[in-house]
């Protein structure tokens, strides 16, 4: 949480010795508050003041990584309760649970399938992040082997769900160096689990029945050398889960409660796929840092990954594409020319429909500063003048042997004006991109 210049001044020596290079301690404090200078410039800073300043510089919600290497999952470091206040920063992890009692071949097959799940949406690749293996067997060796098989076959970041310390020990050994998340530390196992987590330097999820117990366990973990922590909601009804997730986010951001300043994990199990998806959707919106699911069908994954992409997009910066003329398929002199905006969602929706029409085309993406058709029209970023400029700038008339231009149905009202300004013959296309395949087929 940010300290004001005056807050900082109160804990400085107030001697105005000038050794920091500033005329007064107050001036130095003001620069510190603006992060314009390092606290270390003050030779007489007390240890306590140094700690306070270091602490104030830490994010209110710790950044935690699960897994190693480039594909590791980083969650936390969130700064707001509502995305419109700024943005949500680190997209919550989504992963799947596999049981260790399944035959090893099946574990490998499932893990390999999950590791290969990947969707492309508006130019971004969407993938699940973790694979969790739950110990239901009595055997530490079986659990460790299942963990190894699942991680190797999926390539996803590992989560270990051991039933006891021997299972945890064996699994940590099996995926040494892979920085798995331990799920989960409770008051009953903390004595055994904590040293293992500390020694392996891996993150751990922690569950307490109450806010109080949760905070005490976190404090104990910090003291025991476990710095990377996720708070677990436990198996609660949705209402209680959302309450806990909201509490922790509030405690960290509004009260600077360090003991609850960690990302959260929720586990959804034992329910039918629809309930799981609906509940997971709520958790994505309201503050989960990691969601572990029992189900793993492609359609659920696609819906949840898409929601995550939506909620974690930057509200201040709509996704944009480069304004230019895009050639779709084997377009030539006779191919239709379609006009749209440079808002990613609009462009990729139009692109998808043009591709599925199988009619080779040119799509001219006009620079509307990332606004959609109607918004850009209302804001005068998608006008006959702007479109005419783009056609000239991109040399569109040189690409085709005709002069027909297809505009979105929603801006039919600009047809006359656009014909006058551009010299192109304007054809009004469908309002929704979904009408494009039929429209384009009828055209030719």
């Amino acid at each position: 949480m940010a300290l004001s210049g005056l807050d900082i001044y109160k804990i400085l020596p107030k001697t105005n010795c000038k050794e920091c290079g500033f005329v007064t301690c107050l001036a130095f404090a003001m620069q510190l508050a603006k992060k314009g200078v390092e606290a270390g410039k003050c030779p007489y800073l007390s240890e306590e003041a140094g700690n306070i300043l270091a602490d104030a510089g830490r994010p209110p919600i710790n950044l935690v990584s699960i897994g190693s290497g480039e594909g590791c999952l980083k969650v936390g470091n969130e700064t707001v309760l509502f995305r419109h206040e700024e943005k949500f920063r680190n997209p919550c992890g989504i992963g799947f649970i596999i049981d260790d009692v399944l035959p090893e071949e099946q574990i490998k097959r499932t893990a390999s399938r999950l590791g290969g799940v990947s969707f492309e949406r508006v130019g971004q690749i969407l993938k699940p992040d973790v694979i969790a293996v739950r110990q239901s067997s009595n055997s530490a060796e079986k659990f460790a082997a299942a963990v190894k098989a699942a991680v190797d076959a999926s390539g996803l970041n590992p989560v270990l769900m051991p039933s006891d310390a021997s299972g945890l020990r064996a699994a940590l050994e099996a995926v040494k160096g892979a920085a798995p998340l331990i799920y989960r530390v409770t008051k009953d196992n903390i004595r055994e689990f904590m040293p293992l987590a500390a020694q392996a330097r891996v993150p751990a999820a922690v569950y307490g029945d109450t806010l109080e117990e949760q905070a005490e366990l976190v404090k104990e973990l910090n003291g025991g050398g476990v710095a990377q922590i996720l708070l677990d909601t436990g198996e609660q009804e949705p209402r209680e889960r959302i309450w806990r997730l909201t509490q922790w986010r509030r405690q960290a951001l509004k009260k600077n409660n360090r003991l609850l300043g960690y990302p959260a994990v929720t586990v959804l199990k034992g329910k039918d796929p629809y309930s799981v998806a609906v509940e997971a959707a709520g958790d994505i919106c309201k503050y989960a840092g990691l969601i572990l699911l029992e189900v793993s069908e492609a359609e659920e994954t696609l819906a949840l990954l898409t929601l995550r992409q939506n909620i974690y997009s930057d509200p201040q910066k709509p996704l944009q594409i480069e304004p230019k003329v895009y050639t779709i398929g084997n377009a030539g002199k006779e191919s239709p020319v379609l006009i749209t905006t440079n808002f990613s969602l609009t462009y990729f929706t139009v692109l998808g429909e043009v591709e599925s029409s199988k009619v080779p085309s040119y799509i001219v993406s006009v620079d509307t500063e990332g606004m959609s058709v109607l918004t850009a029209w209302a804001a005068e970023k998608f006008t006959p003048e702007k479109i005419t400029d783009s056609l000239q700038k991109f040399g569109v008339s040189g690409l085709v042997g005709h002069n027909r231009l297809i505009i979105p149905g929603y801006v039919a009202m600009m047809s006359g004006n656009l014909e006058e300004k551009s010299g192109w013959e304007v054809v009004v296309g469908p309002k929704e991109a979904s009408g494009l395949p039929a429209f384009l087929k009828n055209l030719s």
Partner: protein
Amino acid sequence: MKLMNNVTLISGETKMSRQEEMLEKWQGEVFTCVIGAKKDEGGTRGSVVKVGGEKTLPFLDKEGSLPNTAAVALEIFDVPPADWPEELVAAYGGVTANPLEWADACVRKFGAELLCVKLAGAHPDAGGRSPEQEAAFLSKLAAAVNVPLIVRGCGDDVKDNTLLPLCSEALKGERCLFGSASQDNYKTLTAAVTADGHGIIAESPIDLNIAKQLNILISDLGLPLERIVMDPTIGALGYGLEYAYSIMERARLAALSGDRNVACPFICFTGQETWKVKEAVAARADFPHWGDKEKRGILWEAVTASALLQAGADILVMRHPKAAEEIKKYACHR
């Protein structure tokens, strides 16, 4: 800034102070809107649906009252739907060809608490059924089912301005919800519903200022804010959902902070937005890695609705009965 707390936490020497839950104390609340009137209130409905009334954010009833569960409506048309995907039509077992049977199935078979009828057949491009025809249809519909009704025009302003007043009169006293009023076209509908005892849907284009302005314009004409429900114009999951999501969160926070002019409940047309997007309707053969087509569509609608519930939706107008059932289960948790 409480420096002493920080010192305590950093030194770690002091015994842990008690962890206290942080409760928000909101000044304002959302208006409660009642849909449907029973016999003793001058209508013929068998039940009424109350929406709104929240004194805190969704699901957080530990710190404030959430007296009404979000309502889930099923949507029908006055004519067989031309552009519904076959899975969706099939979910109703063939009754969509007959709107009255369709309505009956929504209520008796799928347990809809609220029925939304869109007068699509009145649109000049869709056959242009006359206002008299539609009013007669609505009278029959009201006799066939006894749940509260939401009635929507065909979407053509000129037609709706002759259509909806007549429909409003035909259902006088039933306390329906009529839509939609927009910034450019609200006077005719407001006058009609005010006279006939209905509520209104105020539609704004993903814009909080316009939403607020429209509520003021409508209430200035004499329709109290308790009879207005706001349609923030949502996009489906993957198609701009997050824009409406944040507009709704902002509006709800303003309402709870005491701004009465945005404190009306939200209605979201989840089904209408979902069942035209590629992920809900594309054939499995075209996108084999997207999974089962029917499940995909249901999930797309249910997940869209789930996110909107978190943003503050009070009425979800759904199309697939399975998606409606799932979201009602979830809404009951709040």
